[in-house]
C-alpha cells in the first residue's frame, strides 16, 4: 500500500467511525465501545424469583448499562397482561387437547417476555413474532381469535399485518428478522421514527438469516431491537448444541451493535431493558440485541414429549422462578395489588379465555374458491381455469347429492 492510499484508508476509517453508533454511545455514556457493545457482566434482574426488589447494586447494572424502574402504571399494565397471557396459554392448550385447535406452541413460562416485547413499543412501531409469540401478538392489541387463525388450521394468518403493525407469526426460523430489517429500512429512508422489535428463539440463532439480519441492520444502522427468548431448548436440543458463545447477547459485538442479557422471567427488568433498547434505537443508536433467559415450561407443542429429553427436576427448578408469581408477590408487597384488583384482572383474563373458547368453537365456513383468490393480485388465466374446474366439480357433486335426496324421497 502506498502512503497516500494508506492515508485515504485512514480517512475512510475515520469517516466510518464518525458514523458509528458506538461512537455516539461512547460520548453518551462515557464508556468504551467494547463496554457499550458487550453485555453487562451479569444479566439484568430487578425483581428476584421470590418477588423482592433487588438492591440497585445487585440488579446487574454497570456504567452505560443502567436501568430505571418502570412506573407503577406500566407495572400494573404488564401484570394484567401476564395474567391474561397465562390464561390464554392454558386455554389454548386445552382447546388443542379437545381437538378444537390444530396445534399450539405454548409460551407458558415465557409470558414476561411476551408481554414486555409488546408493551415496549409505540403505536407506529412494528413487531415481528414467531409461532410461539401469540401472547405478544395479543398484547400488542390483535384480536385473540384472529391471532389463533393459523393454529386453528385455517389457511391464512388471520390479522392484517400492515394495519396491526405485526408480522404474520413466522414458522421458518429467523426469516422474519429480515422482514423486520426491511420495514425499519423503509421507514428510515422516509424519515419516520419507527422502531422494529424482531423476535426469535435460542435455537434460531444458529440459522443463517439470524446472522444476515443482524449484520444488515448494523451495516444500515437501522432501528431494530432483536429480542432472543432463550428458553433453553430448540424442541429437544439444549442450547449447548447450538452455541458455545459466552452468551447469545455476546454475539452483538461481532456485528458492531450493543447486546444485553436480562432475566426473562422478570417482567420488571424486561420492561426496563427492552424499553431502553427501543428508546436508544429510536434515538439513532442503531440496532440492539437483547437475550432473555427464560424456560419453556411445556413441551414444544402438543405433538412433542418433553420427558424424552429433560428431567422433571429441571422443570421444577423453573417453577420456582415463575414470572407471574414473582410479580404478584412484588406488586402485593408494594401495595399496588390487592384482592379486589386481582379479581378484576382475573375477570379480564377469563373474558379473553371465553372469547377464545367461543370464537374457536364456531365453525368457520370454508370457501373453496379462496384457494385461488389470493395467489396473485389478479388470478392468472391458469388459476381461473383451475378455479372453474373446481366450481364445476362442486356443482356436479351438489347436483348428484340433490338427485340422491330426491330419489330418497
Amino acid at each position, binding site marked *: 500500500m502506498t502512503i497516500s492510499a494508506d492515508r485515504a484508508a485512514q480517512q475512510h476509517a475515520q469517516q466510518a467511525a464518525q458514523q458509528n453508533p458506538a461512537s455516539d454511545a461512547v460520548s453518551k455514556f462515557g464508556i468504551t465501545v467494547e463496554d457499550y457493545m458487550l453485555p453487562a457482566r451479569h444479566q439484568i434482574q430487578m425483581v428476584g424469583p421470590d418477588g423482592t426488589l433487588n438492591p440497585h447494586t445487585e440488579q446487574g447494572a454497570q456504567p452505560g448499562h443502567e436501568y430505571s424502574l418502570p412506573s407503577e402504571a406500566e407495572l400494573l399494565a404488564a401484570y394484567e397482561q401476564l395474567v391474561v397471557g397465562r390464561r390464554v396459554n392454558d386455554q389454548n392448550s386445552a382447546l388443542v387437547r379437545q381437538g378444537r385447535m390444530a396445534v399450539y406452541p405454548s409460551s407458558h413460562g415465557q409470558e414476561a417476555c411476551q408481554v414486555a416485547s409488546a408493551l415496549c413499543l409505540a403505536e407506529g412501531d412494528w413487531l415481528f413474532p414467531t409461532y410461539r409469540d401469540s401472547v405478544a401478538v395479543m398484547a400488542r392489541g390483535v384480536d385473540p381469535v384472529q391471532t389463533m387463525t393459523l393454529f386453528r388450521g385455517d389457511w*391464512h394468518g388471520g390479522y392484517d399485518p*400492515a394495519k396491526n403493525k405485526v408480522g404474520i407469526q413466522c414458522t421458518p426460523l429467523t*426469516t422474519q428478522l429480515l*422482514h423486520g430489517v426491511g420495514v425499519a*429500512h423503509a421507514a428510515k429512508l422516509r424519515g419516520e421514527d419507527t422502531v422494529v422489535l424482531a423476535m426469535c428463539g435460542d435455537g434460531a440463532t444458529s440459522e443463517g438469516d439470524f*446472522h444476515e439480519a443482524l449484520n444488515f441492520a448494523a451495516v444500515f444502522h437501522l432501528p431494530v431491537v432483536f429480542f432472543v427468548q432463550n428458553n433453553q431448548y430448540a424442541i429437544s436440543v439444549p442450547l449447548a448444541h447450538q452455541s458455545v458463545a459466552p452468551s447469545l447477547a455476546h454475539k452483538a459485538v461481532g456485528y458492531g451493535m450493543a447486546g444485553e442479557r436480562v432475566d426473562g422471567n422478570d417482567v420488571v427488568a424486561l420492561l426496563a431493558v427492552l424499553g431502553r433498547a427501543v428508546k436508544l434505537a429510536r434515538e439513532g443508536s442503531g440496532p440492539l440485541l437483547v437475550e432473555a433467559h427464560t424456560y419453556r415450561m411445556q413441551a414444544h407443542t402438543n405433538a412433542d414429549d418433553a420427558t424424552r429429553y429433560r428431567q422433571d427436576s429441571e422443570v421444577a427448578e423453573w417453577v420456582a422462578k415463575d414470572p407471574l408469581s414473582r410479580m404478584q408477590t412484588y406488586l402485593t408487597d408494594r401495595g399496588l395489588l390487592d384482592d379486589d384488583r386481582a379479581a378484576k384482572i382475573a375477570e379480564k383474563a377469563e373474558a379473553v379465555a371465553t372469547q377464545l373458547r367461543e370464537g374457536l368453537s364456531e365453525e368457520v365456513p370454508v370457501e373453496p374458491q379462496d384457494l385461488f383468490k389470493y*395467489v396473485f393480485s389478479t388470478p392468472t*388465466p391458469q388459476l381461473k381455469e383451475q378455479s372453474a374446474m373446481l366450481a364445476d366439480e362442486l356443482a356436479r357433486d351438489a347436483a348428484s347429492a340433490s338427485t340422491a335426496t330426491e330419489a330418497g324421497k
Partner: protein
Amino acid sequence: MSPTISTSSEVNGNVSAATARAAAKAAVEAEKTGPQTITLAKALNTAMADAMHADPSVLVFGEDVGMLGGVFRITDGLTKTFGTSRCFDTPLAESGIVGMAVGMAMNGMRPVIEMQFDAFAYPAFEQIVSHVAKMHNRTKGAVKLPMVIRVPYAGGIGGVEHHCDSSEAYYAHTAGLKVFTPATVADGYRMLREAIDSDDPVMFMEPKKLYWSKDQVDLDALRAEHATNTERGTSSEGRAAVARPGTDATLIAYGPSVPTALAAAAAAAEEGRSLEVIDVRSIVPFDDETVCASVRKTGRAVVIAEAHGFASVASEIVARVQERCFHHLAAPIRRVTGFDVPYPAPKLEHYYLPGVDRILDAVDDLQWED
C-alpha cells in the same frame, strides 16, 4: 452441429472488459432521441432509471450494484443519478437482500433487487419460496409484495461453474411468483417496467448472453407506450409474442433461446420450410392462447430451452400444448433442451446448448412424410 448464435467476445472474451466497453458506448447512445441502436443492458438500465424517476418508492439494491453499476453494469449510473439511498450496495448475502426487500415491500417500497448470478440466488431460495411467493396468499391479500428479483441467468458466455444455471423452473414451479424473461432489447425495457409496476413479486430472468445484443429501438416510443398502457390499464404482461410468422411448424422458445430459434427458422426458410417462432416472454402467467393458436395453425411444434429438459418449463409447455391441441397435431411435440447434466464448463458448453442444427434435426423429425 453449430453453436448458438453469439458474438465471439461473449464466448471467449474478457466478460467484464466487454461489459464496460458496451456500457460506456451504450451510455453515449442513450442520450440520443428517436430510434437508436442500444443493448439489452442499456434497455434494462433505462427501464430502472425511468421507473425510479417516476416513483420515489422504487429502490435498487444488491451486490456491487452501487458505485460499480453491477458486474454486468445493468445498474450503471443509478447511484450517481439517484443517490445511495435509492441505489445501494448491500452486504454480500442473498437471503438478506431478498428478506430485507420483503420487509421494504411490506412497508411501502417497490424494491428492484439484483441476484448477481443465477446460482448465487440459491441462498435466498427460502425467502423467495416461503415468503415472497406466499405473503399475499397467507395474508388473504392484505399484504402485497411489489418487488422484482432480477436474475442474470443461463449460459453461453463462457462462464465458470455456478454462473450459468437456468434456474427458471424452480421459480415457475412455485405458486405466487410471476416469471418473466425478455429476449429482445425492446422487451427488456417494456417488461422490466411492467415487472416494477406489478403489485405481485416478479422473478425477472435476464438472459445474460443477450446483455450485449443490440437492436434499434425508440426509447421515447417505448416510454410513450408504457404511459399509454398505464393510463388504459393495458399491457403486454403475460402475453407471448410471434417473433417470426410461419406456417409449417412452431418453434416455442424463451429468453436466451429465442435468437437461436430465430436463426433456426431463418436456416429452415432457406430450405423452403416456414417456421413460426413464438417468444414466450412470460413463463408465469403463461400465454396458452398465443402458443396454442400457433400450434393449431401449424400442426407441429418444437419447444426450445437451455435448461435441463427433465421436469422443466419446456416439459410443461409440451404438456399444455398436447392437452389443448392434440387433434391439431400432425406429430408428437419435440423438445430441444440442455442435457440433464450440471451446466458444463466453457470448453464443453457448446455441446450442451440447444443450437440451430439440433433444432433443425428436431424439426426434421416432425413426421413430414405422413
